């Protein structure tokens, strides 16, 4: 067992975990943050994307011990003081999701993109988001949603 000290969505967390706990299982089962989804379990689909110290990672391939001393951001941590992240607002307004299973991962990946490139081209959006699979939308509405945030055309 290892005692972890980390910040999750801004809150300090102290928790003991088995050495072989996956970060995904730690978030979902130990902390109850079930917004992060398990899809393929091999790092391909993007449903489990979270930010680890700002970097987008597959939480299904990360050990929970990797997060010791770090900041983890999940989809539950995107809103600020009760207000949705502009990306969440844009996904609603632009129809960036249908069934919703991939949406937490899409939102986190998009947040990482805009943090690194606030004004991405559409090609940059597509290249960055390529690894987050969606079987409903055909991706156009997801790109439009991110475009709207980058262009500042999302309603508050």
């Amino acid at each position, binding site marked *: 067992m*290892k005692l972890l000290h980390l910040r999750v969505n801004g809150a300090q967390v102290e928790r003991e975990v*088995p*050495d*072989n706990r*996956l970060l995904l299982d730690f978030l979902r089962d130990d902390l109850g943050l079930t917004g992060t989804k398990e899809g393929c*379990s*091999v*790092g*391909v689909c*993007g449903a489990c*994307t979270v930010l680890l110290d700002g*970097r*987008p*990672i*597959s939480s299904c*391939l*990360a*050990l929970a*011990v*990797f997060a010791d001393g770090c900041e983890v951001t999940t989809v539950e941590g995107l809103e600020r003081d009760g207000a949705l992240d502009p990306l969440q607002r844009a996904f609603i307004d632009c129809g960036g999701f249908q069934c919703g299973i991939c949406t937490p991962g899409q939102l986190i*990946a998009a947040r*990482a*993109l805009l943090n690194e490139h606030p004004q991405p081209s559409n090609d940059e959006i597509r*290249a*960055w988001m*390529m*690894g*987050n699979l969606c079987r409903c939308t055909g991706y156009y509405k997801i790109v439009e949603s991110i475009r709207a945030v980058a262009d500042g055309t999302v309603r508050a």
Partner: protein
Amino acid sequence: MNAFEYLEPATVDEALAILAEHGDDARPIAGGTALVNLMKQRLVQPAYLVGLRRLTDLSTIAANGELRLGALCTHHELEISPHIQRAAPVLSEMLRRVANIRVRSMATIGGALAHADPNQDPPPVLIALDARVVVGSRGGERDLQVEALFTGYYETALAPGELITRIVIPAQPAASGAAFTKMLPQTQDDYATVSAAARLTVDGERIADARVAAGSVGETPLRLRAVERALVGQVAAPAILRDAATLAGDEVDPLSDIRGSAAYKRAVAAVIVRRTLEQALARARAGAPA
């Protein structure tokens, strides 16, 4: 995953001591994208995992004629490094297209090389650029050319207790150009059906030096020496490049799999190598850095 004890050394020396003590029972882990998948499938069941993330000495990028890359640099850190974009832009081009942004943000360059998956993109480019790895162990350090690191399917020349600490890319020759091509008929995040990298150095009309390597066409990344021999000393004409590239079809040793039959990959290799040579030559003539 099996139960294991996770150890997290604070220094490289401490890491090497732990790896020496536990030998084959221990595996170093950095990003985890390869090893965690292997452990989930119970293909690897180490008693000890040695987490490297606190070894910040191995996360640096130094450019001083040669490029010295810490083994713990992630693919994404290298992809956006201005040093690399300046000194070896072909490396940035290749890295930008590895897997997806999460893998590139987790997986380290040293971990990728130690994983020795013959389908990966970095090895052919590093071989073309004449790169070497620095391997540390409790007994000291040794250098190994990247092409000598791979000994078989997921097998390396690393002994238990050894750790890749740095990747060194020498200053690229004047009048050289490098290129990398990967054939991706399905999705952009797939492994290549065939990939190739080349660095050509020109002297007037002639090819003074050639380094050519391919991925996804054998048990290891392959250096294509017959192709190189057919180029060196020749006038850099389209027919010479095409004839040399044709030799790649015989030199590769691909497996039939879901990406195509062995015969198909041999045919594709000749085309991919030719296109790579043409682009490398154009860059060498344009005086662009490799």
